[in-house]
């Protein structure tokens, strides 16, 4: 027994955030993204300090009397508001989606690791999102837009089940920068693909059809100098990683956000364990080389 050994804890946990007691936030805006997904904007109701969240982190959201679930921050407003994009799948996510403006919910966080944007300065960046996976990537995209000149080529590739299932679609045109601007700003490529287009929507759909990874071969010209950030269903991420490796992107420059059952978010309840990792604390964002050996084993 050698309990004195130093432990590799990735970051110091702020004791203020480090509690099972949520802060109360009030809904100040709601945007319907798709038939089952809404974005909730909220302000803190306690006049306390703003949450300082980094792109890719998540909060634990509590609905009074119903329960609590992990949800990524899909943006942080300049006024300190928090944006979460929630798909209604079960009791808590439905209750969150049903909250009306003026109603309150609980927030604990932010938790987890973030997309390592600062360390990618100078690199080209591929953003690859499947479905709701675009939510935790949106703050990273906002960073790429804001500090566009710090990066090489930038390509954003989004997949959705159908045109009606795209989230944040109204922002795509703002993200896209076709040619170098008059100001000299660099371009950003935004490409969207859907699995299928229902007959009645065919006339209006001018985008691609197929899996999101099919967009990759035509993405960036300097893969050796590139990094990628991926979020989506685990199967999709597994395929995407193979394609990115084939393009020539290094393992340690591929980042993905993993999902596991989470109850505490502070490395204490054990639910999110993946081998030596607590996904809530050591993730959800991992570099591929850290989890490569874990993603190929069934039921870990």
């Amino acid at each position: 027994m050698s309990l004195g050994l130093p432990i590799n804890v990735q970051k110091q946990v702020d004791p203020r955030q480090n509690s099972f007691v949520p802060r109360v936030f009030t809904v100040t805006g709601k945007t319907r993204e798709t038939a089952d997904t809404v974005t909730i904007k909220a302000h803190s109701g306690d006049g306390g300090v703003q949450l300082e969240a980094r792109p890719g982190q998540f909060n634990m959201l509590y609905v009074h009397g119903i329960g609590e679930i992990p949800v990524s921050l899909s943006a942080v407003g300049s006024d300190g508001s928090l944006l979460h994009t929630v798909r209604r799948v079960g009791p808590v996510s439905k209750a969150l989606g049903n909250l009306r403006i003026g109603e309150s919910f609980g927030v604990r966080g932010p938790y987890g690791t973030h997309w390592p944007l600062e360390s990618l300065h100078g690199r080209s960046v591929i953003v690859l999102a499947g479905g709701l996976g675009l939510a935790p990537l949106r703050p990273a995209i906002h960073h790429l837009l804001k500090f566009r000149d710090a990066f090489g080529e930038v390509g954003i590739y989004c997949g959705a089940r159908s045109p009606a299932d795209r989230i944040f679609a109204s922002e795509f045109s703002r993200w896209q920068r076709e040619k170098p601007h008059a100001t000299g700003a660099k371009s950003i490529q935004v490409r969207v693909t859907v699995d299928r287009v229902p007959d009645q929507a065919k006339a209006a759909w001018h985008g691609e059809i197929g899996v999101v990874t099919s967009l990759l071969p035509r993405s960036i010209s300097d893969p050796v100098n590139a990094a990628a950030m991926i979020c989506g269903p685990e199967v999709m991420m597994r395929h995407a990683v193979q394609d990115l490796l084939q393009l020539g992107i290094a393992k340690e420059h591929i980042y993905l956000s993993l999902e596991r059952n989470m109850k505490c978010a502070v490395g204490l309840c054990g639910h999110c364990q993946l081998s030596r990792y607590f996904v809530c604390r050591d993730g959800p964002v991992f570099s591929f080389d850290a989890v490569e050996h874990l993603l190929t084993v069934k039921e870990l």
Partner: protein
Amino acid sequence: MATLSADIGVTYRMRAGDLGALFSTLHAANFLTIGPRLSGEAIILEELNGPEDLPVGWGDEQEAGRYRLRRRADQAFFGYNLGPESWKKFLTPQRQLLWRARRQGATFTIEQPERLGGGPQQLAFIGVRACELAAIRVQERVREVSGQPANDLIDAKCRVATPFLVGVTCAQSAATCFCTSMGTGPALGPPGSSGVGYDLALTEFPSEDDHHFTIEARSERGADIASHIPRQLATEEECDAVRQQSDTTAALMRRHLKLDKPAQLFQDSLEHPHWDEVASRCLSCANCTLVCPTCFCTNIEDTSDLSGDVAERWLRWDSCFHLDFSYLHGGSVRQTTRSRYRQWLTHKLGTWHEQFGSSGCVGCGRCIAWCPVGIDLTVELEALTLSPEVTGVQTGKYEHP
């Protein structure tokens, strides 16, 4: 002599008849004394009024899937081995209220346990074995690494300060014990050597004509309490007898666990065929995790009253053997018993080292005795590490739920 101060690290001799003074001194110092007590067919941990509540003259017989009380030939107070309960019953209670929320119009307010009432009580644990000191430290380490302040987790009724710990040397091992393999016992080492710091060390010598203890203070407050107990300096032979007792216990230890490279257990055994073999016996009943003194997994339960106005958050023990433990929308990650037993064993003996700097097993043997089908981790580990078919990771394709 009774009021002469006791010195830390000095061994004293105490008559068995004066054990009551330990209880009364602790009670006078406002401690609630907790320790082993006979209850039904087992020895469990509960509040004790005095030495008469200890399982005097009782021992036990343990094997894989088996625990039976046995009458001893003598009147030993601590002549038993570990029962199904560990001190985590008090340190991280099975169910704890974290907070209560009241709806107020469109919003709600949260009250924390401090304000729910109930006064703090200091606990004294009587009869803590060496491996249990180690287990208390292992659980403490989990909270430390998580950065979660311990008092955040504890109901106001329970522990506020570290409990007063009275250790007892094991005069015999159960057939299920393997603390020597884990380096956690049976001797009560100097404080902090293998476990959590503690206050008093007792060693019992239950002979008919001279039933006595040795008592040694391991902390300031331990010395304070010992000062009030009638005692005399132990002779050199009596001091030697303490060491001899644990040496004999160690020498008679029947089970052993051998794992040279714990960090590699996980990776090397992932696709081992033996997991299927264990899974064919394991009932996924979670007994092993409930009796284990280090298992720390919990669930958060959010409840509400019928009106929906008052909601509560409870923290309660959970187990990685439950199907919904790894539930994600669409299905659990660990569907099979094979994957759940693998998670338990590779975590306990392997990945725990990387997470917390020690093994997650202290060798107490409880999971062996209390497994209804007698699954024995020392035997399973041998099959997993010694057999030649270690296959390592299979990089195949699979579809996640």
